[in-house]
């Protein structure tokens, strides 16, 4: 028998925490773009739902000190023009269609944690912090830790924290159409010119975004950090190392409807070179070298 659906609609975060404590593991409903079809098709069992839409404090976004904070119920459309977070804004603009961007939320992207999720890939490259709140208060997890352990059944994601950008950032993706498509492979690159490092995450290729650590190290070592430039050879090598990171990822996706696995790793390398060309002056032209 199909379960009985109930929905609570708390008006404040504390009320939401209490509600969740009373029915741990309830489905959290924000934009609904993932949850609604999953419930309709029966892909998810029917549980109690807690709608977060009325909680105004979850929709806030702001900057304080070195940190940017984005409420879990901020939509992609809310982020698409945010000048303080150019990489995040570019990622939000690349999501789905206008209708989805008007509805889908940051918290939803984390709650669903689709391996193809655009935002998730960027957040991994940005080494974002995920703020979860429960009966004993709030705590912040690194994005990697969050993806590995998730959060407790009595906790919910309330915000995401990003360091203020200290250099160029970009998000590139390959889909099966000119626009409005799910990424076959995507690449988020975040350059930190202060700490003289880059972080690179590849989406769509494994069960969660893949960090290309060896490739990141290679850039850190070969870039001219006084100018932020990367020699073309190094950019080319960066692409190769990203492709290798995808191939050797522990749970790399196999061939599927969208593309063969070999194409994903190839495409990831191409996107990584392009991302480097956009973010690290001097790397332009690396694309022109045949792999």
């Amino acid at each position, binding site marked *: 028998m199909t379960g009985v659906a109930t*929905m609570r609609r708390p008006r404040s975060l504390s009320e939401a925490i209490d509600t969740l404590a009373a029915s741990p593991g309830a489905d959290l409903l924000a934009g609904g773009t993932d949850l609604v*079809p999953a419930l*309709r098709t029966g892909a998810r069992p029917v549980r109690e739902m807690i*709608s977060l839409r009325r909680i105004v404090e979850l929709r806030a976004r702001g900057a304080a000190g070195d940190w940017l904070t984005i409420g879990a119920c901020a939509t992609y459309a809310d982020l698409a023009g945010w000048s303080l977070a150019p990489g995040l804004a570019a990622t939000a603009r690349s999501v*789905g269609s*206008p*209708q989805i961007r008007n*509805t889908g939320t940051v918290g939803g992207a984390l709650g669903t944690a689709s391996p193809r999720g655009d935002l998730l890939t960027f957040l991994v490259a940005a080494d974002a912090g995920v703020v979860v709140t429960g009966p004993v208060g709030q705590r912040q997890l690194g994005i990697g830790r969050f993806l590995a352990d998730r959060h407790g059944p009595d906790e919910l994601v309330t915000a995401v924290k990003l360091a203020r950008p200290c250099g160029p950032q970009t998000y590139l993706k390959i889909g099966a159409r*000119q626009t409005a498509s799910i990424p076959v492979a995507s690449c988020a690159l975040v350059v930190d010119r202060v700490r003289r490092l880059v972080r690179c995450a590849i989406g769509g290729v494994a069960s969660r975004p893949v960090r290309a650590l060896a490739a990141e190290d290679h850039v850190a070592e070969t870039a001219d950090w006084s100018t932020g430039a990367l020699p073309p050879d190094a950019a080319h090598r960066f692409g190769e190392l990203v492709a290798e990171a995808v191939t050797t990822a522990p749970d790399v996706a196999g061939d599927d409807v969208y593309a063969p696995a070999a194409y994903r790793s190839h495409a990831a390398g191409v996107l990584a070179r392009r991302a480097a060309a956009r973010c690290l002056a001097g790397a332009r032209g690396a694309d022109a070298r045949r792999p």
Partner: protein
Amino acid sequence: MTEIAIKITVNGRPQEAVVEPRLTLADFLRENCRLTGTHLACEHGVCGACTVLVDGAAVRSCLMFAVQAADREVTTVEGIAAPDGTLSPVQAAFRDCHGLQCGFCTPGFIMSLTALLRDNPDPTDEDIRVGLSGNLCRCTGYQGILAAARQAAPGPAEA
């Protein structure tokens, strides 16, 4: 006991109903309000045939529960003509430019384009193509729809 009383303003008229939490906004509009101009073609949030405006923003009503639209303003294709039935400029343009054949995608395109032109009254062709890429049409090849969008665009704002 699990049903929820909601009030949604649909096309300017308050609609009160007691609904199941899992009732989608699309089904609420089609079944409860008998506004069948909002169409369902994929129910996966891809085709855009169910596009409506919620507080002015174009959304897919198949991806939203009716409860999520509570206390908000919803506009459907039935709500954009003038009270005397005169078609809106976007509606008239679709009719005039053969922007439709079977017409099943048309209400969704009309709602998306209505929102697009409100935000960008003088779009380029590429603005229109990308802005409408969340709506699928299987009949027209989109050229008639582009022609309609060009006709309906108010043009650059007066200086």
